[in-house]
């Protein structure tokens, strides 16, 4: 399992209600079900991934986070997880609002465009950066709204969303991925 998922799982509480938005093939959900809480649901857009989730015995709803989060009642989950997809939505702000409405807390991870490798790439090569977390070319990347950790923290501050990120400048330079637990 991806290292990121272990980090996310550690943020969850036992017996809490968890919604994994864009749960993919259900790897994280399966780990959470077996180790933390059985009360886990997924929302996933890919039919092939849903089949994999069903085979794992997971409860998943086919749907698009941008359209289908609205059917979930407010504060119906203790945690709503969104892993590395915020930047791929047409309207990330709308999705953020929905995550914070449905979940008492949201766990959001973002690939950091402020990482030093990305900065060097752009500075010296003069091309869009390609890294482990950003593997695509500019013309075929699903990422529409790239941001840095600093951008994300600034956004949360501006919108009065509670977020905790000590040593922001340091983290923004050295982290490839930001994982945050946020709440309204």
């Amino acid at each position: 399992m991806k290292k990121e998922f272990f980090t996310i799982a550690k943020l969850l509480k036992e017996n809490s209600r968890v919604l994994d938005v864009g749960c993919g093939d259900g790897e994280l959900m399966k780990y959470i079900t077996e180790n933390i809480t059985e009360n886990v649901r997924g929302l996933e857009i890919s039919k092939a991934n849903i089949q994999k989730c069903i085979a794992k015995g997971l409860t998943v709803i086919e749907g698009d986070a941008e359209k289908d989060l609205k059917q979930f009642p407010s504060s119906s989950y203790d945690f709503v997880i969104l892993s590395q997809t915020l930047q791929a939505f047409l309207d990330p702000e709308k999705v953020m609002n929905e995550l914070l409405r449905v979940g008492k807390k949201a766990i959001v991870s973002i690939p950091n465009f402020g990482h030093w490798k990305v900065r060097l790439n752009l500075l010296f090569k003069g091309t869009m950066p390609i890294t482990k977390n950003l593997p695509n070319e500019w013309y075929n990347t699903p990422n529409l709204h790239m941001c840095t950790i600093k951008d994300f923290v600034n956004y949360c501050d501006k919108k009065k969303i509670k977020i905790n990120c000590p040593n922001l400048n340091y983290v923004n330079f050295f982290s490839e991925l930001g994982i945050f637990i946020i709440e309204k």
Partner: protein
Amino acid sequence: MNKIDKIKKIVIEKPLKLDCGKTIQNFPLAYETYGKLNEKKDNAILVFHALTGDQFASGKNPITNKEGWWSYALGPDKAIDTNKFFVICANVIGGCMGSYGPSHLDNSTGKPFGTNFPVITINDMVNAQYNLLEYFNIKKLFSVIGGSMGGMQVLQFISNFPDKSHTVIPIACTASHSAQNIALNELGRQSIMADHNWMEGFYAENKKNPDKGLAVARMAAHITYLSKKGLQEKFGRKLQERDDLKFGFDADFQIESYLRYQGSVFVDRFDANSYLYITRAMDYFDLTKQFNGNLSKAFEKTSSKFFIISFTSDWLYPTPENREIVIALNAIGKNVGFVEINSDKGHDSFLLDIPDFLNAVKNYLETSYKKIK
């Protein structure tokens, strides 16, 4: 001995109050079973059939000598694996495969009921079939499953008996029959009733049968079970055993010949009045209205796990109508999974060999069964 007398039946002695206000009792309910009920009696699945289905879901139908309607999905090692599960399927009341229906004899006249048979609803069908749990001494089913009208029965069942099934699988259905579907059913009914052999429903005692009307009803309905793309790919404009158009009204095109065939074989196995009664039951189905416009309330009392399945090319019970059920369940935090299966075979997809569909059902049942153990 008549073939129809060999059908397994229970006689329901308890009075059943129908939605129309009438009460019926001592009436037969025909059923079939597949697989074995285990000692703990925790492996039973109740399968509900669709409009023209019957209790012979799998294997050879002894009356028609054709494969059961759900042979792709139900049987040993199949999606609903009868090596593991005990499956019960009953003929709905109003039907014509041994259960109490309009072709049944009315003891007060000695003649078939015809249109003197009471109008029945999906709710009545489900309440009648509930007696099978008592008959088999099953406290709680493992699953209730059905497609199309079978899916409507699944929804009504769990609403009526919220603690009687661990899992609930409505497929390609709706919680409230749409205007388009009522319209299509009305087309079929009018076709039957326009046949002068229908005789206000009393054709049997007059030794007639409204074959033509029933065949046209089936032809029209059959089109709605397919998709435009499916029809185009299978038939296109291909001609039927001829090199050129004949400038007449014979079946020039393969699609015409196919539909005529579908109509003609249907009248051999289905009763015209049953078609009227069952389509009416579908039209009357509105679970949302039963709960004063709030579908969520229908499921409030159940802690069952739901798995809802729709098909991309199904325009009769399209994905948005299936999704409404998902939304109603989500609104009250129920355990609900949902997938829309890719298929260009239209509404009929749930009856066909669609691997993504069959795998999803198999995996869902088997992983869920392990959890109740």
